[in-house]
C-alpha cells in the first residue's frame, strides 16, 4: 500500500560546511543519512527522520539543521496535521498508535501558574552560601506521637523503617528492557553519590547493580518480573506498581525482540517471548487485596523496608490514596498525566489521567483531613522540569519528587518520542548492543549527579529567599505559594490564594 504519510522533518545540509565525514550516517539510528557513491557525497533522506537531533549535535562542522517539514496543509483548527497523520497511519496499519514519553498536549501546566514567596523587610532571608541549609528528607511511616525516655533522653517509640534522602529528588522507575543497562547503571551510581534513590521499574534488578541496593527502589508490578527473595532483600524500598501516568489503567507489553539474554536473566523469563504485564495485578482487586500484598512484602522483608505503592493520578486519587494508606502503604507515589514511558498507546497517553499538581493538592488535603498524613510519605512524579517545580510540589505537600524525563534529558534525550521503537539514537531507550554503548556510565552518572547538584543549590537558594533553612519548613506550606491566572475552583483545589491576596 502506498503510504500517504509525509516526512515530519526536513534536513538542511550546508554543503559549504559539510566535510563528508559520515558522522551523521553512523550516528543516525533510522538511516536518514546515506553516502551516495555516484556523487561521492553524503546526502539525507528525510522520510525516516524523527527529529532526535543526534546528527546535529555530533556534526563536527555544524553543517546540519533539522527542521519541521514546512509543507503546509490548509489551515484547520480541528483537523491539525497530526490528526490527519494519525488517521492515515491507522488506515495503513489497522493498529493501536504507539508512542513514547509523556503527554505532549497543551493542557494547563499548573506549576507555571504558581509562584513562590520571598522574604522582604519583615523577616530576613538567609544566604545559603554562608548558613547551613537542610534538604534531608525521611520517607516512610511516621508515628502519631513520639515518647522520649526522660532518664536516658532516648526515643522510646519504636519507629517504622525510614529512608533518609539527602535531597528530596529521586530517579523514577525505568525498567531494564525499556532503558539500557548503562542508563540504569548511570542512575544507580548518581543516586548513590548524591544520597538518594533510583527505581528499577518492573524489569528486575541486573546482577551487576545489586551493589547499589541500598540506594534502590525495587518494583513489584503485575508481571512480577524478577521478583525473587534476593531482589526484595537487596532493596531499600519495595514499590508496588499499580499504575503509571503515561498509561493509567493498562498493562504493558515489552516486545519479544527486546527480551535479550540479559533482559531475560534479569526478568527471569525466557528469551524472545513478549514480557506481558497484565493491566491489573491479579492478586489485587480491592483495597483489602492491596493490604494483603503490602503485608506479604513486609513479611517477605521482615518489616525492615518501607513499602511504597505507586498509582497514576486519576479522578478519584484522593479517596484511593486514603485507602492505600489505610492498607499499610508507607509511601504513596502519584504519577501525573505528564509522566513518561517507553511505550504507550498514544490515545491513552494523551487523554487519560489528571495533572499531578491537582492530584497532589487533593491527596495531601484528604490525608490531612483524615488524620493520616503522617502515616505515609507522598512522592510525586510526572513532568517535573526544574527545581522550581520541585519547590512548588513540596509546598503543595509532596515529601519527595521522582524525575524520569528530566533525568533522561540529562543523559542526552531530546524527546523525539520514539522510545517505543527501541531505536533510540541517544542509546537510552534501547537494548540494541551498539546503541547501548552510546551511554557511558561514567559520564552518565556524572551528568545526572550534576543535575541533582544544580537543583539542590537552586532549592537552597529558594528556601533561603523565603527565610527558611530546612525543606521540612516548606513541606505542605501552601502559604508560600500564590496562584496567577487560575479560577476560584482551581485555587480552591490547589489550596492556594490568588497572587496579591
Amino acid at each position, binding site marked *: 500500500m502506498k503510504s500517504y504519510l509525509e516526512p515530519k522533518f526536513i534536513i538542511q545540509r550546508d554543503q559549504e560546511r559539510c566535510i563528508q565525514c559520515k558522522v551523521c550516517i553512523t550516528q543516525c539510528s533510522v538511516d536518514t543519512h546515506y553516502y551516495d557513491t555516484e556523487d561521492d557525497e553524503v546526502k539525507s533522506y528525510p522520510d525516516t527522520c524523527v527529529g532526535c537531533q543526534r546528527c546535529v549535535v555530533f556534526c563536527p562542522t555544524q553543517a546540519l539543521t533539522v527542521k519541521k517539514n514546512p509543507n503546509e496543509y490548509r489551515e484547520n483548527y480541528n483537523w491539525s496535521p497530526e490528526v490527519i497523520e494519525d488517521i492515515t*497511519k*491507522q488506515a*495503513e*496499519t*489497522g*493498529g*493501536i*498508535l*504507539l508512542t513514547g514519553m509523556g503527554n505532549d498536549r497543551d493542557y494547563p501546566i499548573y506549576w507555571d501558574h504558581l509562584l513562590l514567596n520571598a522574604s522582604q523587610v519583615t523577616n530576613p532571608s538567609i544566604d545559603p552560601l554562608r548558613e547551613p541549609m537542610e534538604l534531608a528528607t525521611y520517607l516512610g511511616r511516621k508515628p502519631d506521637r513520639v515518647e522520649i525516655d526522660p532518664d536516658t533522653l532516648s526515643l522510646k517509640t519504636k519507629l517504622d523503617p525510614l529512608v533518609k534522602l539527602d535531597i528530596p529528588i529521586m530517579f523514577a522507575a525505568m525498567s531494564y528492557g525499556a532503558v539500557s543497562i548503562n542508563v540504569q547503571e548511570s542512575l544507580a551510581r548518581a543516586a548513590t553519590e548524591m544520597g538518594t534513590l533510583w527505581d528499577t521499574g518492573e524489569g528486575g534488578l541486573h546482577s551487576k547493580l545489586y551493589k547499589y541496593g541500598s540506594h534502590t527502589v525495587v518494583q513489584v508490578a*503485575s*508481571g*512480577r518480573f524478577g*521478583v*525473587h*527473595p534476593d531482589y*526484595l532483600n537487596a532493596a531499600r524500598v519495595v514499590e508496588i506498581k499499580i499504575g503509571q501516568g503515561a498509561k493509567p489503567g493498562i498493562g504493558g*507489553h515489552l*516486545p*519479544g525482540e527486546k527480551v535479550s539474554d540479559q533482559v*531475560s536473566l534479569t526478568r*527471569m*523469563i*525466557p528469551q*524472545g*517471548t*513478549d514480557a*506481558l504485564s*497484565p493491566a491489573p495485578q*491479579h*492478586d489485587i482487586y480491592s483495597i483489602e487485596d492491596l493490604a*494483603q500484598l503490602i*503485608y*506479604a512484602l513486609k*513479611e*517477605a*522483608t*521482615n518489616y525492615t523496608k518501607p513499602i511504597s505503592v505507586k498509582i497514576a493520578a486519576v479522578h478519584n486519587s484522593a479517596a484511593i490514596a486514603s485507602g492505600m494508606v489505610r492498607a499499610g502503604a508507607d509511601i504513596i507515589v502519584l504519577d501525573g498525566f505528564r509522566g513518561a514511558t517507553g511505550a504507550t*498507546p498514544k490515545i491513552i497517553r494523551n487523554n487519560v489521567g489528571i495533572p499531578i499538581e491537582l492530584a497532589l493538592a487533593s491527596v495531601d488535603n484528604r490525608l490531612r483531613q483524615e488524620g493520616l498524613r503522617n502515616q505515609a510519605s507522598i512522592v510525586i512524579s510526572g513532568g517535573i522540569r526544574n527545581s522550581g517545580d520541585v519547590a512548588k510540589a513540596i509546598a503543595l505537600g509532596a515529601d519527595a519528587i521522582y524525575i524520569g524525563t528530566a533525568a533522561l534529558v540529562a543523559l542526552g534525550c531530546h524527546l523525539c518520542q520514539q522510545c*517505543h*521503537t527501541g531505536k533510540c539514537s541517544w542509546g537510552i531507550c534501547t537494548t540494541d548492543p551498539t546503541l547501548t554503548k552510546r551511554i557511558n556510565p561514567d559520564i552518565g552518572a556524572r551528568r545526572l549527579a550534576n543535575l541533582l547538584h544544580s537543583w539542590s543549590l537552586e532549592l537552597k537558594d529558594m528556601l533561603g529567599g523565603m527565610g527558611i533553612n530546612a525543606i521540612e519548613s516548606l513541606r505542605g506550606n501552601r502559604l508560600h505559594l500564590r496562584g496567577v491566572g487560575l479560577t476560584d475552583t482551581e485555587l480552591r483545589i490547589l489550596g492556594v490564594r490568588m497572587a496579591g491576596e
Partner: protein
Amino acid sequence: MAKVAKIDASGIYYRELNQQIRRLATEGAQQIELHNVCGQRYIGTNLDRPVEIEIFGTPGNDLGAFMNGSEITVNGNAQDGCGNTMNEGKIVIQGHAGDIIGSSARGGKIFIKGSVSYRTGIHMKEYQNKQPAIVIGGTTQDFVGEYMAGGILVLLGLNLNGGENHKACFIGTGMHGGVIYIRGGIEDYQLGKEVGIAELAENDHQILHQLVSEFSSYFGYNAELILNHRFIKLFPRYLRPYGRLYAY
C-alpha cells in the same frame, strides 16, 4: 536426625506466628508442625532456609508467597494466593484451594487434592531450569492458566461424575508459554482464543506420568488408573499473542 518443632497456632496473630516459625527455622528446625491454624496469612514466606511445614487447620491467604524452597503440607483447605510468586518449593493440599493458586510462580510444585477457584496458575512463568507445576485433582473455575508464560498445569477432573465436563471458561486466555493438560471433557468454547489443542506426544506422557505419580503418592490414588484416560494438551498458539496489535 530431623528436629520436629510444634506450634499451637490457636489465637495467635499471623505476624507473631510467622515470627515464631522464622525463629524456629533460624534455630535449625527442619520440620515444623502447626496445629489449630485458622486463617493466618503468609505462612512459609521469608524463611532464611527451607523447612518442612505441616499444617493442621485452614491457613489464610498467600500461603507460601515468595517461597524459596520450603515444603508445606496442608491437612485441610487452603485459601487465595497460595504459592504467589513462588520461586522454589512444594505445597501439598489435602483439600480444596481458593483463587489465583500459583499466581506468577516461577518455580516449585503445588498439588491439590480437591478443586480450585478462579485464575489458577495465572501468569506462571518458567526460567532456566525452573518450571513450576500445579496439579489439581478436581476441577476449576474460569480463567485457569490465564496469561500463562511458562510452567505446567494439570487438571485431573477426578471429582467429575461420569460424562460430566469441566465448567471453566476462558481457559488459557492470553497464554503465551507453558502447557496445560486436561483430563475430562471440555468444549472448544471454553478455551481462550490464544490456545491450541493437541494430542499428547511421548514427552507429554512422561511429564504427566511423573506429576500424576507424585500427586497419587500424596493423596492415595492409583496413578495408572488416572492416566488410563484421555488427556488433551493445550498449548499457546503464539509466543507473542499481542505482537500485531500496534502501529508504529
